[in-house]
């Protein structure tokens, strides 16, 4: 049994929250540059220029990339041969998040759903735990903004809907969202599982790099096809038209009940902020 001090987790999580909000992942920056070069629409080119300048400014000044520093979402893989000393893993992650959002001057966006009163510390963090073999602890942090999250949907299809039905729903959802979720977006798709697993998978799918190809060649092909279709919508960066409505489509598939065909579409804005750490 390996022991991980809670304080190590608190410090790492705080660092991750601050870094995720100040540094866009390399794959996102690279894709911005590629798409900026590919665009012919001047408004689209200008939007990418501003996003690249914003990213540079954020790195230099420490100001968050976006004022919406998101709800802090964590995906955790805890090795069965590791244990946390000092407090529970959930408590350590939450304390680290609160520390990071405070010390990084990040916006606290968590509030009571009825009174709308701000909790004041961005808590509680939303954490998805997985137990895995081994003695490592792996934590992914995602800063998920409200504007794009509001454009996300779960839909329970009858099996007869098939891929055709799912594809239509995905494209319609992106079309309807239009300029609202800060395009160019990424689209995370959960297919199968049940109501809640589809939703979790649609978000987890967004942890993959933009360039990452799905290991299953058939699914990889669907991802490419849906991406190409969405980009024909001509919504473009910030809804001003152009070839780039979507930067990437990531699908995660799980077996489902024979009566069901769950689909979740998680919309991610262009500020696709996430970090990971292995302890």
């Amino acid at each position, binding site marked *: 049994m390996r022991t991980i001090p809670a304080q190590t987790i608190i410090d790492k999580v705080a660092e991750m929250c601050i870094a995720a909000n100040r540094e866009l992942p390399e794959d996102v920056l690279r894709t911005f540059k590629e798409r900026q070069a590919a665009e012919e629409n001047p*408004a689209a080119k200008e*939007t990418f220029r*501003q*996003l690249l*300048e*914003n990213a540079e*400014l*954020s790195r230099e*000044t*420490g*100001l*968050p*990339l*976006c*004022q*919406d*520093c998101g709800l802090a979402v964590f995906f955790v893989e805890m090795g069965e041969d590791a244990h946390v000393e000092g407090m529970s893993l959930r408590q350590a992650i939450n304390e680290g998040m609160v520390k990071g959002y405070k010390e990084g*001057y*990040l*916006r*606290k*966006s968590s509030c009571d759903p009825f009174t*709308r009163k*701000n909790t*004041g510390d961005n808590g509680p963090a939303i954490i998805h735990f997985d137990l895995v073999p081994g003695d490592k602890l792996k934590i992914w942090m995602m800063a998920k903004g*409200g*504007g794009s999250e*509001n454009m996300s949907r779960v839909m329970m299809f009858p099996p007869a809907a098939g891929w055709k039905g799912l594809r*239509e729903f995905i*494209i*319609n959802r*992106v*079309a309807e969202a*239009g*300029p*609202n*979720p*800060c395009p160019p977006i990424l689209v995370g798709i959960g297919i199968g599982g049940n109501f809640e697993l589809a939703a979790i998978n649609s978000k987890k799918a967004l942890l993959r790099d933009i360039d990452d190809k799905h290991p299953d060649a058939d699914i990889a092909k669907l991802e490419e*096809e849906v991406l*190409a*279709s*969405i980009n*024909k*919508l*001509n*919504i*473009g960066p*910030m*809804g*001003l*038209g152009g070839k780039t409505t979507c930067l990437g489509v990531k699908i995660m598939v799980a077996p489902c009940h024979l009566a069901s065909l769950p689909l979740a579409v998680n919309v991610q*804005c*262009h*500020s696709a902020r996430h970090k990971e750490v292995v302890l």
Partner: protein
Amino acid sequence: MAEYTLTTPLTDADIEKLKSGDVVYITGTIYTGRDAAHKRLTDSLDKGEALPFDLKGALIYYVGPSPAPPGRPIGSAGPTTSYRMDTYAPRLHSLGLKGTIGKGKRSPEVKDAMAKYKAAYFGATGGAGALLSQAIKAAKVIAYEDLGPEAIRELTVEKFPLLVINDCHGGELYTTPNLEAALAG
């Protein structure tokens, strides 16, 4: 597409010359407000109370900034999605509000109100909060401090860069998605 530098408060003449697609730099004072603040403004109007700022010629920026780090007037300050304020906007336009700043689509009711009362909807680049904050020279909370990021702030801006999305003549800059092409594959 023209480029204008406008100083607040805005007049009918300022708004009438704007067309969707124009670039506008705003200098002067703008007020922040989002969901919870709009609800309170509306409640105040219902009760016949005075508002915390003069709506005449005013601009409201839909933003909930991140906290100001030491030595800066404000944190990151990009636009939030505007449709959530659609319920409240027509009434505010009828009372003199000349413009709103945000991102994303507006309802037909808001567009009608902008045509009727001579107002415009401006877009700022969503997610470019660090960049946009550079045009904000001063910020102070003037109402609803308890709302934290949602409190109403008075911002002093210099050449704050905007795009006219909806003008008062019915023009709109956002594209209509080509659903047919996308569904065809």
